[in-house]
């Protein structure tokens, strides 16, 4: 009896976790709410000295946000330099080498501020919630992450192909 109750509780917990993973927010109310205040211009430093910024990605592990991030990654032409994560003109994103820090907060700061030698600043151009979605997607590129979280259960947002790519 007790074993049955435990199994039931486990199943419920798993189901609840699953719901959370594919939760969709179709209406972001506060686009600038997630901005970490500790990020400022002027303290750019190359090399491993960047301190880990411990901001938590509000979309951590959310499959819908990861697919949205994947769309935006192509939409805002991140792929133009970083390609599909393998790098080329810009550094690779799927390996474990992070010049400016690998924590979600560091990646967020890098996108917002821009970095020397090529990475433009997207401050004020990409809404913050979308930057967090892109960060969530970038984190799925790592090899140690399972594929279970991304992309979402219904892949309606994946690009099926380009009919006419330009205008």
């Amino acid at each position, binding site marked *: 009896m007790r074993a049955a109750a435990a199994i039931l509780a486990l199943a419920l917990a798993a189901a609840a976790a699953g719901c959370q993973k594919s939760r969709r927010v179709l209406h972001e109310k506060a*686009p600038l709410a997630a901005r970490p205040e500790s990020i400022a211009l002027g303290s750019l430093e190359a090399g491993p000295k960047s301190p880990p910024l411990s901001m938590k990605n509000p979309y951590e592990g959310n499959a819908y946000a990861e697919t949205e991030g994947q769309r935006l990654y192509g939409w805002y032409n991140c792929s133009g330099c970083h390609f599909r994560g393998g790098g080329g003109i810009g550094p690779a994103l799927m390996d474990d080498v992070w010049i400016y820090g690998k924590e979600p907060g560091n990646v967020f700061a890098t996108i917002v501020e821009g970095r020397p030698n090529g990475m433009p600043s997207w401050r*004020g151009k990409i*809404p913050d919630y979308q930057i967090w979605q892109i960060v969530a997607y970038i984190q799925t590129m790592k090899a140690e992450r399972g594929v279970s979280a991304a992309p979402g259960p219904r892949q309606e947002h994946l*690009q*099926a*192909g*380009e*009919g006419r790519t330009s*205008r």
Partner: protein
Amino acid sequence: MKRAAPGTLLLLSTGCRARYAVFDTASPEAHRIANLHWLMLGICVAVAVAVLALLGIALVRRDRGRYSDGSARRVRAVAAGAAVSAFLLLVLLVASVLAGREITAPGGPQALEVRITGHQWWWEISYPGSSPSEEVVTANEIHVPVHRPVRFLLSSGDVIHSFWVPRLNGKKDLIPGRLTRHIFQVDRPGVFRGQCAEFCGYQHAHMGFVVVAEDPARFDAWLAAQRGIAAEPAGPSAVHGRTVFLSSPCVLCHTIRGIGAFGHKAPDLTHVASRTMIAAATLHNTPGNLAGWILDAPRVKPGTRMPPNTLAANDLLDLVAYLESLR
């Protein structure tokens, strides 16, 4: 349209509003489809009435006689029924094939060519010119001349959509990676509502557009005006609005030709003020609607690709003033 069916028309127009009334046709193609419908309806009603009448006769007469007439008469009756059925089905088949041929005829060399690309959840419309700089790109509002065939080349940038203007022709899918063709010729000036007819995501139901049919002279004037680059802002408010546009997220996705905004993921806004509707024919193009849409588009259409924007009040007002000046 047959005047003989006012009851049906009334029923339909109360049910789905006149702008989608498929029997209120405005093109030869839609007229052909409506005629085919009336033919099919007429034959099917006649067959249903005949079958029920024969059934009734059989029920009344079942006790009479003892089937002593022999089998020859029954065989003749069954053969006659099969022959009549086959003939009527053949009539319907021929009528359907002929109508299908007519509504997909390519339209000849004098046809106007319009390219349409479906996006989640809006329509990109382009009129190819003799050179790339002559090309006209707009969104969600298709202008066509009357009495001239218009050939549409349809494609999609993401998922399958379907192009449907109920009063002008049937549906045609927009399929990623391939071109499909569609055609109609509008009989009279007017504004006709169109709608995506293939489920394509959250805002499928609000993925509308309008077809504006006008006299050839007015159409040519419209096309010439659309070819130009964006109007210079008049006045300090609009000038500041342009600066706001270029320094905000707008510029990443929208194009305004002539000011260095080249985003191509969202509708071209070079002549946005000349359109009657915004947000894929969901809102009327008024300054209030435009401001609300810029500030919080997902509140109007949850799931839309247009993000909410945080702008200072004077920035927003100037931005709207600038956009409303782009005629």
